[in-house]
Protein backbone atom coordinates (compact mmCIF):
# COMPACT_ATOMS: atom_id res chain seq x y z
CA UNK A 1 0.00 0.00 0.00
CA UNK A 2 1.57 3.27 -1.01
CA UNK A 3 2.34 5.57 1.85
CA UNK A 4 4.19 8.70 2.21
CA UNK A 5 5.37 7.73 5.57
CA UNK A 6 6.67 9.94 7.94
CA UNK A 7 5.92 11.12 9.63
CA UNK A 8 5.07 12.45 8.15
CA UNK A 9 4.48 13.23 5.65
CA UNK A 10 3.62 12.67 3.72
CA UNK A 11 2.13 13.85 3.47
CA UNK A 12 5.14 13.80 1.48
CA UNK A 13 4.60 13.59 -2.03
CA UNK A 14 1.50 12.15 -0.53
CA UNK A 15 2.04 14.62 2.23
CA UNK A 16 2.62 17.40 -0.24
CA UNK A 17 5.70 18.71 1.38
CA UNK A 18 6.81 19.86 4.81
CA UNK A 19 4.90 22.34 6.89
CA UNK A 20 7.26 25.24 7.32
CA UNK A 21 7.85 26.01 10.95
CA UNK A 22 10.67 28.23 11.92
CA UNK A 23 9.47 29.20 15.33
CA UNK A 24 10.69 26.56 17.73
CA UNK A 25 14.36 26.24 18.48
CA UNK A 26 16.29 23.04 17.89
CA UNK A 27 15.51 20.40 20.48
CA UNK A 28 18.25 18.62 22.38
CA UNK A 29 18.91 15.08 21.25
CA UNK A 30 18.05 12.44 23.81
CA UNK A 31 19.90 9.25 24.56
CA UNK A 32 18.82 6.34 22.40
CA UNK A 33 16.13 4.19 23.95
CA UNK A 34 16.27 0.45 24.19
CA UNK A 35 14.65 -0.96 21.10
CA UNK A 36 12.81 -3.77 22.75
CA UNK A 37 11.67 -5.09 26.08
CA UNK A 38 14.26 -7.82 25.79
CA UNK A 39 16.92 -5.23 26.49
CA UNK A 40 15.37 -4.32 29.80
CA UNK A 41 16.85 -5.90 32.92
CA UNK A 42 14.82 -8.96 34.02
CA UNK A 43 11.97 -8.06 36.34
CA UNK A 44 11.55 -9.78 39.67
CA UNK A 45 7.83 -9.97 39.23
CA UNK A 46 7.13 -11.87 36.03
CA UNK A 47 3.78 -10.25 35.31
CA UNK A 48 5.04 -6.65 35.43
CA UNK A 49 7.49 -7.26 32.61
CA UNK A 50 4.73 -8.48 30.34
CA UNK A 51 2.82 -5.29 31.11
CA UNK A 52 5.92 -3.33 30.12
CA UNK A 53 6.11 -5.24 26.88
CA UNK A 54 2.45 -4.55 26.18
CA UNK A 55 2.91 -0.88 26.99
CA UNK A 56 5.95 -0.68 24.78
CA UNK A 57 3.99 -2.26 21.95
CA UNK A 58 1.27 0.31 22.38
CA UNK A 59 3.76 3.15 22.20
CA UNK A 60 5.15 1.77 18.94
CA UNK A 61 1.65 1.33 17.56
CA UNK A 62 0.65 4.82 18.59
CA UNK A 63 3.68 6.35 16.88
CA UNK A 64 2.93 4.36 13.72
CA UNK A 65 -0.75 5.29 13.77
CA UNK A 66 -0.05 8.98 14.33
CA UNK A 67 2.40 9.00 11.43
CA UNK A 68 -0.04 7.25 9.12
CA UNK A 69 -3.00 9.44 10.07
CA UNK A 70 -1.04 12.66 9.78
CA UNK A 71 -0.50 12.38 6.04
CA UNK A 72 -3.56 14.37 5.00
CA UNK A 73 -3.06 16.81 7.88
CA UNK A 74 -6.60 16.30 9.18
CA UNK A 75 -7.23 16.32 12.89
CA UNK A 76 -6.35 13.00 14.47
CA UNK A 77 -9.11 11.90 16.80
CA UNK A 78 -8.18 10.57 20.19
CA UNK A 79 -10.86 7.91 19.79
CA UNK A 80 -9.14 6.60 16.65
CA UNK A 81 -5.83 6.38 18.45
CA UNK A 82 -7.35 4.52 21.39
CA UNK A 83 -9.19 2.13 19.10
CA UNK A 84 -6.32 1.33 16.74
CA UNK A 85 -3.19 1.64 18.81
CA UNK A 86 -4.41 0.81 22.31
CA UNK A 87 -6.99 -1.84 21.40
CA UNK A 88 -9.71 0.23 23.01
CA UNK A 89 -7.87 0.52 26.34
CA UNK A 90 -8.42 4.18 27.14
CA UNK A 91 -7.00 3.99 30.66
CA UNK A 92 -3.44 3.74 29.44
CA UNK A 93 -3.77 6.56 26.93
CA UNK A 94 -2.17 9.27 29.03
CA UNK A 95 0.88 7.17 29.78
CA UNK A 96 1.32 5.87 26.24
CA UNK A 97 0.88 9.22 24.55
CA UNK A 98 3.46 10.86 26.80
CA UNK A 99 6.11 8.45 25.66
CA UNK A 100 4.94 8.51 22.05
CA UNK A 101 5.26 12.31 22.06
CA UNK A 102 8.83 12.05 23.32
CA UNK A 103 9.75 9.54 20.66
CA UNK A 104 8.15 11.53 17.83
CA UNK A 105 10.12 14.56 18.92
CA UNK A 106 13.37 12.71 19.45
CA UNK A 107 13.40 10.63 16.27
CA UNK A 108 11.65 12.87 13.76
CA UNK A 109 11.48 16.34 15.24
CA UNK A 110 7.68 16.15 15.30
CA UNK A 111 5.45 17.71 17.92
CA UNK A 112 2.10 16.16 18.71
CA UNK A 113 -0.19 19.01 19.64
CA UNK A 114 -3.53 18.65 21.39
CA UNK A 115 -6.38 20.72 20.07
CA UNK A 116 -10.03 20.96 20.91
CA UNK A 117 -9.82 20.12 24.57
CA UNK A 118 -7.85 16.88 24.23
CA UNK A 119 -10.18 15.28 21.73
CA UNK A 120 -7.92 15.65 18.73
CA UNK A 121 -4.33 16.09 17.75
CA UNK A 122 -2.24 17.47 14.96
CA UNK A 123 1.33 16.62 14.09
CA UNK A 124 3.57 19.57 13.37
CA UNK A 125 7.25 19.81 12.69
CA UNK A 126 9.80 21.61 14.81
CA UNK A 127 12.45 21.42 12.10
CA UNK A 128 12.18 22.61 8.55
CA UNK A 129 13.45 20.14 6.06
CA UNK A 130 13.01 21.92 2.82
CA UNK A 131 12.29 25.21 1.20
CA UNK A 132 9.09 26.34 -0.41
CA UNK A 133 10.70 25.61 -3.78
CA UNK A 134 10.90 21.99 -2.73
CA UNK A 135 7.15 21.60 -2.70
CA UNK A 136 5.04 20.48 -5.59
CA UNK A 137 3.40 23.11 -7.77
CA UNK A 138 -0.05 22.16 -6.53
CA UNK A 139 1.07 22.49 -2.94
CA UNK A 140 2.72 25.85 -3.48
CA UNK A 141 -0.47 27.26 -4.97
CA UNK A 142 -2.60 26.10 -2.06
CA UNK A 143 -0.07 27.54 0.33
CA UNK A 144 -0.15 30.88 -1.43
CA UNK A 145 -3.92 31.09 -1.05
CA UNK A 146 -3.60 30.06 2.58
CA UNK A 147 -1.04 32.81 3.21
CA UNK A 148 -3.40 35.39 1.78
CA UNK A 149 -6.29 34.24 3.93
CA UNK A 150 -4.21 33.96 7.11
CA UNK A 151 -2.65 37.31 6.36
CA UNK A 152 -6.01 38.99 6.00
CA UNK A 153 -7.25 37.45 9.24
CA UNK A 154 -4.07 38.54 11.00
CA UNK A 155 -4.39 42.11 9.81
CA UNK A 156 -7.97 42.11 11.07
CA UNK A 157 -6.68 41.04 14.47
CA UNK A 158 -7.75 37.45 14.37
CA UNK A 159 -11.41 37.27 13.53
CA UNK A 160 -13.12 37.90 10.21
CA UNK A 161 -16.55 37.32 8.79
CA UNK A 162 -16.82 35.05 5.80
CA UNK A 163 -18.28 37.85 3.72
CA UNK A 164 -15.42 40.15 4.64
CA UNK A 165 -13.00 37.45 3.50
CA UNK A 166 -14.71 37.02 0.14
CA UNK A 167 -14.75 40.79 -0.35
CA UNK A 168 -11.01 40.94 0.32
CA UNK A 169 -10.30 38.11 -2.11
CA UNK A 170 -12.59 39.63 -4.72
CA UNK A 171 -10.34 42.70 -4.71
CA UNK A 172 -7.51 40.35 -5.72
CA UNK A 173 -9.72 38.87 -8.45
CA UNK A 174 -10.18 35.67 -6.52
CA UNK A 175 -13.81 34.66 -6.74
CA UNK A 176 -15.60 32.37 -4.34
CA UNK A 177 -17.43 30.72 -7.19
CA UNK A 178 -16.16 28.20 -9.69
CA UNK A 179 -12.61 27.17 -10.43
CA UNK A 180 -9.90 29.78 -10.13
CA UNK A 181 -7.31 29.35 -12.86
CA UNK A 182 -4.43 29.32 -10.39
CA UNK A 183 -5.89 28.24 -7.07
CA UNK A 184 -8.62 25.85 -8.14
CA UNK A 185 -11.77 25.43 -6.08
CA UNK A 186 -11.24 28.36 -3.72
CA UNK A 187 -14.53 27.92 -1.89
CA UNK A 188 -13.78 24.29 -1.10
CA UNK A 189 -10.24 25.04 0.00
CA UNK A 190 -11.26 27.77 2.40
CA UNK A 191 -14.52 26.40 3.78
CA UNK A 192 -13.51 22.74 3.90
CA UNK A 193 -9.91 21.75 3.25
CA UNK A 194 -8.08 24.35 5.33
CA UNK A 195 -10.59 23.89 8.15
CA UNK A 196 -10.17 20.10 8.16
CA UNK A 197 -6.43 20.57 8.19
CA UNK A 198 -6.69 22.90 11.19
CA UNK A 199 -5.18 25.85 9.35
CA UNK A 200 -8.44 27.73 9.84
CA UNK A 201 -11.21 27.54 12.39
CA UNK A 202 -14.67 28.28 11.10
CA UNK A 203 -17.27 29.22 13.66
CA UNK A 204 -20.95 29.81 13.20
CA UNK A 205 -22.68 32.69 14.84
CA UNK A 206 -26.40 33.18 14.81
CA UNK A 207 -26.96 36.86 14.34
CA UNK A 208 -30.16 38.23 15.72
CA UNK A 209 -32.52 39.62 13.20
CA UNK A 210 -30.86 37.86 10.28
CA UNK A 211 -32.25 34.78 8.63
CA UNK A 212 -29.07 32.91 7.78
CA UNK A 213 -26.15 32.14 10.04
CA UNK A 214 -22.92 33.97 9.58
CA UNK A 215 -19.56 32.28 9.59
CA UNK A 216 -16.37 33.63 11.06
CA UNK A 217 -12.80 32.57 10.46
CA UNK A 218 -9.72 32.58 12.63
CA UNK A 219 -6.26 31.01 12.67
CA UNK A 220 -6.37 27.29 13.44
CA UNK A 221 -3.99 25.36 15.66
CA UNK A 222 -1.88 24.22 12.71
CA UNK A 223 -1.42 27.75 11.45
CA UNK A 224 -0.36 28.85 14.93
CA UNK A 225 2.27 26.15 15.07
CA UNK A 226 3.52 25.92 11.52
CA UNK A 227 3.62 29.50 10.37
CA UNK A 228 5.31 32.45 11.85
CA UNK A 229 3.36 35.64 12.30
CA UNK A 230 6.44 37.52 11.20
CA UNK A 231 6.43 35.81 7.81
CA UNK A 232 2.73 36.39 7.29
CA UNK A 233 3.01 40.03 8.30
CA UNK A 234 5.92 40.60 5.96
CA UNK A 235 4.02 38.92 3.10
CA UNK A 236 1.02 41.15 3.58
CA UNK A 237 3.22 44.18 3.84
CA UNK A 238 4.86 43.28 0.56
CA UNK A 239 1.39 43.02 -0.91
CA UNK A 240 0.38 46.37 0.53
CA UNK A 241 3.70 48.02 -0.24
CA UNK A 242 4.28 49.38 3.25
CA UNK A 243 6.78 48.50 5.98
CA UNK A 244 5.32 46.44 8.82
CA UNK A 245 5.80 49.12 11.47
CA UNK A 246 2.87 50.95 9.87
CA UNK A 247 0.65 48.28 11.34
CA UNK A 248 1.52 48.79 14.95
CA UNK A 249 -0.71 46.19 16.61
CA UNK A 250 0.22 43.44 14.21
CA UNK A 251 3.89 44.34 14.25
CA UNK A 252 3.96 44.25 18.03
CA UNK A 253 2.15 40.92 18.10
CA UNK A 254 4.47 39.42 15.54
CA UNK A 255 7.64 40.63 17.18
CA UNK A 256 6.45 39.70 20.67
CA UNK A 257 6.22 43.19 22.05
CA UNK A 258 2.63 43.06 23.32
CA UNK A 259 3.31 41.18 26.55
CA UNK A 260 5.54 43.93 27.93
CA UNK A 261 2.87 46.56 27.27
CA UNK A 262 0.17 44.56 28.99
CA UNK A 263 2.47 44.00 31.97
CA UNK A 264 3.02 47.72 32.37
CA UNK A 265 -0.69 48.48 32.25
CA UNK A 266 -1.56 46.01 35.00
CA UNK A 267 1.16 47.38 37.22
CA UNK A 268 -0.21 50.90 36.84
CA UNK A 269 -3.66 49.71 37.92
CA UNK A 270 -2.48 47.93 41.08
CA UNK A 271 -0.33 50.84 42.18
CA UNK A 272 -3.38 53.08 42.26
Amino acid at each position, binding site marked *: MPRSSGTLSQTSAARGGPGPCNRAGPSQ*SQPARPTGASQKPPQENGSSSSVDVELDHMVINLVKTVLNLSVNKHLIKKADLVKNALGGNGRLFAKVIEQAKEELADVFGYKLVETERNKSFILVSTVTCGSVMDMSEDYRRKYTLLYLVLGYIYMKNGDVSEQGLWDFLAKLNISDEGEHSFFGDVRKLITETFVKQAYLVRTKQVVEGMNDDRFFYGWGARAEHELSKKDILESICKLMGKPSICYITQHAAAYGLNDDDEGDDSMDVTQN
Partner: protein
Amino acid sequence: MPTAMPYTDVHRAFAQAIAHHGTMSAKQAYKALLAIYAKYHDGEEIPSEDDIPEVVASINGKLYRYDQKICFVHYEPADTDFYVFCNLVESQIDRIQNYYSESETTLFRLVLREMATSEEHKLKPIMCLNLTGEIQGKQLSKVRAEQLLDQWEKMGYFVQLGGMWHFGPKVIGEFDRYLTTNYPEQMRMCKLCKESVFYGVRCDKCPESFHRDCMKKYLRRLTNCPGCKNLWSTPV
Protein backbone atom coordinates in the same frame (compact mmCIF):
# COMPACT_ATOMS: atom_id res chain seq x y z
CA MET B 1 37.50 4.08 18.14
CA PRO B 2 35.60 6.98 16.58
CA THR B 3 32.73 8.35 18.66
CA ALA B 4 29.24 7.85 17.27
CA MET B 5 27.68 10.91 15.66
CA PRO B 6 25.30 12.54 18.15
CA TYR B 7 21.70 12.54 16.98
CA THR B 8 20.73 16.12 16.21
CA ASP B 9 18.21 18.19 14.31
CA VAL B 10 20.31 17.47 11.23
CA HIS B 11 19.18 13.86 11.49
CA ARG B 12 15.60 14.80 12.28
CA ALA B 13 15.29 17.21 9.38
CA PHE B 14 16.92 14.74 7.01
CA ALA B 15 14.62 11.93 8.16
CA GLN B 16 11.64 14.18 7.54
CA ALA B 17 12.91 15.17 4.11
CA ILE B 18 13.22 11.57 2.95
CA ALA B 19 9.93 10.59 4.54
CA HIS B 20 8.15 13.46 2.82
CA HIS B 21 9.52 12.70 -0.60
CA GLY B 22 9.25 8.97 -0.24
CA THR B 23 12.28 8.62 -2.49
CA MET B 24 15.20 10.93 -3.15
CA SER B 25 18.01 10.52 -5.61
CA ALA B 26 21.48 10.68 -4.10
CA LYS B 27 21.92 14.11 -5.66
CA GLN B 28 18.63 15.41 -4.25
CA ALA B 29 19.50 13.97 -0.87
CA TYR B 30 22.86 15.73 -0.94
CA LYS B 31 21.27 19.08 -1.79
CA ALA B 32 18.84 18.61 1.07
CA LEU B 33 21.66 17.73 3.47
CA LEU B 34 23.60 20.84 2.49
CA ALA B 35 20.61 23.05 3.30
CA ILE B 36 19.97 21.18 6.53
CA TYR B 37 23.59 21.43 7.66
CA ALA B 38 23.54 25.15 6.95
CA LYS B 39 20.54 25.51 9.19
CA TYR B 40 21.07 23.02 12.00
CA HIS B 41 24.67 21.95 12.17
CA ASP B 42 26.83 23.41 14.91
CA GLY B 43 30.00 24.39 13.18
CA GLU B 44 31.28 25.44 9.79
CA GLU B 45 31.77 22.06 8.11
CA ILE B 46 30.14 21.45 4.78
CA PRO B 47 29.10 17.84 4.35
CA SER B 48 30.23 15.72 1.43
CA GLU B 49 28.16 13.09 -0.37
CA ASP B 50 30.10 10.47 1.57
CA ASP B 51 28.59 11.74 4.82
CA ILE B 52 25.11 10.66 3.79
CA PRO B 53 25.48 6.94 4.65
CA GLU B 54 26.54 7.79 8.20
CA VAL B 55 23.61 10.14 8.71
CA VAL B 56 21.28 7.50 7.28
CA ALA B 57 22.75 4.82 9.55
CA SER B 58 22.12 6.96 12.64
CA ILE B 59 18.54 7.58 11.61
CA ASN B 60 17.99 3.92 10.83
CA GLY B 61 19.18 3.06 14.31
CA LYS B 62 16.10 4.88 15.59
CA LEU B 63 13.67 3.93 12.83
CA TYR B 64 14.23 0.24 13.44
CA ARG B 65 11.83 0.37 16.37
CA TYR B 66 8.95 1.34 14.06
CA ASP B 67 9.80 -1.18 11.35
CA GLN B 68 10.98 1.62 9.12
CA LYS B 69 14.27 2.05 7.29
CA ILE B 70 15.91 4.38 4.82
CA CYS B 71 17.12 1.97 2.15
CA PHE B 72 19.85 2.64 -0.37
CA VAL B 73 18.75 1.42 -3.80
CA HIS B 74 21.02 1.39 -6.80
CA TYR B 75 18.44 1.60 -9.56
CA GLU B 76 20.10 -0.05 -12.53
CA PRO B 77 17.66 0.88 -15.32
CA ALA B 78 18.48 4.55 -14.77
CA ASP B 79 21.95 3.91 -13.32
CA THR B 80 21.00 6.18 -10.41
CA ASP B 81 21.30 5.81 -6.67
CA PHE B 82 18.29 6.47 -4.46
CA TYR B 83 17.49 6.76 -0.77
CA VAL B 84 14.03 5.37 -0.11
CA PHE B 85 11.93 5.65 3.04
CA CYS B 86 10.59 2.13 3.50
CA ASN B 87 8.11 0.43 5.75
CA LEU B 88 9.41 -3.05 6.34
CA VAL B 89 6.25 -4.77 7.55
CA GLU B 90 2.61 -4.63 6.71
CA SER B 91 0.66 -5.78 9.72
CA GLN B 92 -2.81 -4.56 10.54
CA ILE B 93 -1.62 -1.48 12.39
CA ASP B 94 0.51 -0.48 9.42
CA ARG B 95 -2.45 -0.58 7.09
CA ILE B 96 -4.32 2.15 8.92
CA GLN B 97 -4.26 5.27 6.82
CA ASN B 98 -6.70 7.92 5.69
CA TYR B 99 -5.13 9.17 2.52
CA TYR B 100 -6.06 6.67 -0.17
CA SER B 101 -9.49 5.17 -0.70
CA GLU B 102 -9.88 1.43 -0.97
CA SER B 103 -10.28 1.65 -4.73
CA GLU B 104 -7.07 3.60 -4.98
CA THR B 105 -5.05 1.08 -3.00
CA THR B 106 -6.64 -1.65 -5.09
CA LEU B 107 -5.43 0.06 -8.24
CA PHE B 108 -1.93 0.10 -6.81
CA ARG B 109 -2.01 -3.64 -6.19
CA LEU B 110 -3.38 -4.25 -9.65
CA VAL B 111 -0.55 -2.29 -11.24
CA LEU B 112 1.93 -4.29 -9.19
CA ARG B 113 0.31 -7.52 -10.32
CA GLU B 114 0.22 -6.54 -13.96
CA MET B 115 3.81 -5.35 -13.88
CA ALA B 116 5.05 -8.42 -12.05
CA THR B 117 3.39 -10.80 -14.47
CA SER B 118 4.37 -8.95 -17.63
CA GLU B 119 7.39 -9.95 -19.65
CA GLU B 120 10.33 -7.81 -18.54
CA HIS B 121 8.21 -6.10 -15.83
CA LYS B 122 7.12 -3.13 -17.87
CA LEU B 123 3.74 -1.76 -18.90
CA LYS B 124 2.36 0.66 -21.43
CA PRO B 125 0.66 3.62 -19.71
CA ILE B 126 -2.71 2.68 -21.21
CA MET B 127 -2.46 -0.76 -19.58
CA CYS B 128 -2.19 0.86 -16.15
CA LEU B 129 -5.22 3.07 -16.80
CA ASN B 130 -7.31 0.18 -18.10
CA LEU B 131 -6.87 -1.62 -14.80
CA THR B 132 -9.50 0.72 -13.35
CA GLY B 133 -11.98 -1.56 -15.06
CA GLU B 134 -11.10 -4.37 -12.69
CA ILE B 135 -11.92 -2.46 -9.54
CA GLN B 136 -14.96 -3.74 -7.64
CA GLY B 137 -17.01 -1.28 -5.66
CA LYS B 138 -16.41 2.47 -6.01
CA GLN B 139 -15.15 3.21 -9.48
CA LEU B 140 -12.08 5.26 -10.27
CA SER B 141 -12.08 7.59 -13.22
CA LYS B 142 -9.22 7.38 -15.70
CA VAL B 143 -8.42 10.99 -14.78
CA ARG B 144 -8.03 10.04 -11.14
CA ALA B 145 -5.97 6.99 -12.12
CA GLU B 146 -3.65 9.24 -14.09
CA GLN B 147 -3.27 11.57 -11.11
CA LEU B 148 -2.47 8.63 -8.87
CA LEU B 149 0.12 7.21 -11.23
CA ASP B 150 1.68 10.65 -11.41
CA GLN B 151 1.83 10.85 -7.61
CA TRP B 152 3.23 7.37 -7.34
CA GLU B 153 5.89 8.21 -9.90
CA LYS B 154 6.90 11.25 -7.87
CA MET B 155 7.16 9.10 -4.77
CA GLY B 156 9.37 6.64 -6.58
CA TYR B 157 7.02 3.65 -6.77
CA PHE B 158 7.15 3.64 -10.54
CA VAL B 159 9.46 5.06 -13.17
CA GLN B 160 8.77 5.85 -16.82
CA LEU B 161 11.54 4.79 -19.14
CA GLY B 162 11.23 4.78 -22.90
CA GLY B 163 7.51 5.44 -22.58
CA MET B 164 6.94 2.37 -20.45
CA TRP B 165 6.15 2.17 -16.73
CA HIS B 166 8.65 0.20 -14.63
CA PHE B 167 8.96 -0.72 -10.98
CA GLY B 168 10.60 2.20 -9.24
CA PRO B 169 13.15 2.26 -6.43
CA LYS B 170 10.42 2.47 -3.77
CA VAL B 171 8.77 -0.75 -4.92
CA ILE B 172 12.18 -2.39 -4.96
CA GLY B 173 12.79 -1.16 -1.41
CA GLU B 174 9.34 -1.87 0.07
CA PHE B 175 7.62 -4.54 -2.00
CA ASP B 176 10.38 -7.00 -2.77
CA ARG B 177 9.06 -9.61 -0.38
CA TYR B 178 5.45 -8.94 -1.34
CA LEU B 179 6.24 -9.54 -5.01
CA THR B 180 8.39 -12.60 -4.54
CA THR B 181 5.74 -14.10 -2.27
CA ASN B 182 2.79 -13.41 -4.54
CA TYR B 183 4.45 -13.88 -7.93
CA PRO B 184 7.17 -16.46 -7.29
CA GLU B 185 7.16 -17.74 -10.88
CA GLN B 186 7.73 -14.34 -12.41
CA MET B 187 10.14 -12.71 -9.97
CA ARG B 188 13.78 -13.52 -10.48
CA MET B 189 16.64 -13.92 -8.04
CA CYS B 190 20.22 -13.09 -8.92
CA LYS B 191 22.21 -16.25 -8.17
CA LEU B 192 25.35 -14.22 -7.60
CA CYS B 193 24.12 -12.11 -4.67
CA LYS B 194 20.92 -13.97 -3.76
CA GLU B 195 18.82 -10.80 -3.95
CA SER B 196 15.83 -10.15 -6.19
CA VAL B 197 16.73 -8.82 -9.59
CA PHE B 198 14.08 -6.63 -11.20
CA TYR B 199 15.84 -5.36 -14.29
CA GLY B 200 19.02 -7.26 -14.90
CA VAL B 201 20.90 -8.93 -17.70
CA ARG B 202 19.69 -12.25 -19.07
CA CYS B 203 21.64 -15.17 -20.31
CA ASP B 204 20.69 -15.93 -23.89
CA LYS B 205 20.87 -19.70 -23.36
CA CYS B 206 19.05 -20.12 -20.03
CA PRO B 207 16.34 -18.21 -18.12
CA GLU B 208 18.70 -16.82 -15.46
CA SER B 209 18.87 -13.06 -14.75
CA PHE B 210 21.60 -11.26 -12.86
CA HIS B 211 22.26 -7.72 -11.65
CA ARG B 212 24.35 -5.81 -14.14
CA ASP B 213 26.86 -4.90 -11.44
CA CYS B 214 27.01 -8.43 -10.11
CA MET B 215 27.70 -9.74 -13.62
CA LYS B 216 30.34 -7.10 -14.33
CA LYS B 217 32.26 -8.14 -11.25
CA TYR B 218 31.86 -11.82 -12.07
CA LEU B 219 33.01 -11.47 -15.67
CA ARG B 220 36.34 -10.02 -14.54
CA ARG B 221 37.28 -13.51 -13.42
CA LEU B 222 35.08 -15.92 -15.34
CA THR B 223 33.41 -16.13 -18.73
CA ASN B 224 30.61 -18.65 -18.36
CA CYS B 225 27.02 -18.14 -17.20
CA PRO B 226 26.74 -18.86 -13.46
CA GLY B 227 23.45 -20.63 -14.21
CA CYS B 228 23.91 -22.88 -17.23
CA LYS B 229 27.74 -22.74 -17.48
CA ASN B 230 27.64 -21.95 -21.19
CA LEU B 231 29.74 -19.07 -22.50
CA TRP B 232 28.21 -15.76 -21.50
CA SER B 233 27.49 -13.61 -24.53
CA THR B 234 24.99 -10.91 -23.45
CA PRO B 235 26.61 -7.45 -23.33
CA VAL B 236 26.77 -6.08 -19.80
